[in-house]
């Protein structure tokens, strides 16, 4: 199967130039061993009850379009991965992160931090309530803007399955200009990062719903 991931070196994204490993990876003949084929176990007692609702972490409601983002974490065979830790972080509705290094002159929202986490249920399902993040500029090249996105971090059942990625929204006009999105070689793989608007997930009078499934690489043991 073709590798869906971007190569390390993708010069359009300038920061890869000095950070991409230049040597061939060592591919162990025996594959990963028992440590690498397992993954940390996380428990519900380690998470707060509202950790998956980014709109309720402060005294007031954040500004922006309230959305629901939900989907399933699946393994390469399509089976749900229960109890997977899913972490998210994102810009606010104006495209600003509450991070010192973010110099974008857009307002911070005192009612929005933009970080959340949850564990998948028995069906592999995660669910977040948040607000739709804004696009934001960056300094990669002249007039560079990131399409609106939510950063995701996911643990599978093997440490080798560990995935950090970004979820995008349908129809974003910035896709063709974004070297991070475009670093994925094939268009059909890029599309796997775009969520789908879903009327059934949408809650009347309250929030639009989006579905996005996350498929982890094959458990190497089964390869």
């Amino acid at each position, binding site marked *: 199967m073709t590798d869906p991931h971007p190569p390390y070196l993708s010069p359009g994204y300038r920061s890869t130039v000095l950070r*991409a*490993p230049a*040597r061939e990876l060592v591919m162990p*003949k025996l594959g990963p061993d028992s440590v690498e084929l397992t993954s940390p176990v996380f428990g519900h007692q380690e998470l707060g009850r509202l950790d998956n609702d980014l709109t309720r972490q402060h005294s007031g409601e954040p500004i922006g379009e309230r959305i629901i983002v939900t989907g399933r974490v699946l393994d390469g065979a399509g089976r749900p991965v229960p109890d997977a*830790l899913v972490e998210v972080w994102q810009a606010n509705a104006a495209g600003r*992160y509450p991070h010192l290094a973010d110099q974008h002159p857009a307002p911070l929202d005192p009612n929005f*931090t933009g970080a959340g986490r949850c564990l998948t249920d028995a069906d592999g399902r995660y669910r977040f309530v948040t607000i739709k993040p804004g696009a934001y500029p960056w300094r990669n090249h002249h007039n560079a803007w990131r399409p609106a996105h939510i950063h995701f971090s996911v643990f599978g059942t093997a440490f080798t399955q560990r995935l950090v*990625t970004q979820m995008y929204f349908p129809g974003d006009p910035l896709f063709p200009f974004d070297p991070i999105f475009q670093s994925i070689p094939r268009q059909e793989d890029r599309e796997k990062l775009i969520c789908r608007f879903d009327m059934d997930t949408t809650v009347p009078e309250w929030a639009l719903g989006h579905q996005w499934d996350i*498929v982890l690489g094959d458990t190497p043991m089964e390869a």
Partner: protein
Amino acid sequence: MTTPSQTVGPFFGYGLPYEGGSELVPGWRPDAIRVRGRVLDGAGEPVPDALVEIWQADGSGEIPRRPGGLVRAGHDFSGFGRCPTDAAGGYWFGTVKPGPVGEGAPYIAVLVFARGLLKPVFTRLYFPEDGAAHGTDPLLAEVPAERRATLIAEREGEREYRFDIHLQGERETVFLGF
């Protein structure tokens, strides 16, 4: 099928790190060790916006199957740690030395995410005092001899180790693909 990877970007600092992420065991434990190092780029410059994660067996070589990676509660050893690099590219972990699992020499699995890394790099940290076991370790046997040292931490003191991670350059760390 597989969902593609994207960079962790520069702004994960308020989302992924958490209290106690570096400290798998409290420093007062008699078997506690400290591992520290820097993440460096191809020009030898520090990478101040990397996230280092480790995963390992406990001191007896058992792979932890209990929670405790996010909330460090008492004496349980969860085997998982996470540390963002500081302005000098530095990271550290307080943990225990893993026992051997199976045939190979003891090691800690290490993942590095960073702005500019479109997917993580995966490596192993081995310990300098295990030279004999390294001679028969199946993975080290596959690493060209002149690059093997990039996988072996340096001893810095009693129960203290240093492990620098070179993403690129003459001393590029050996990274694994599976």
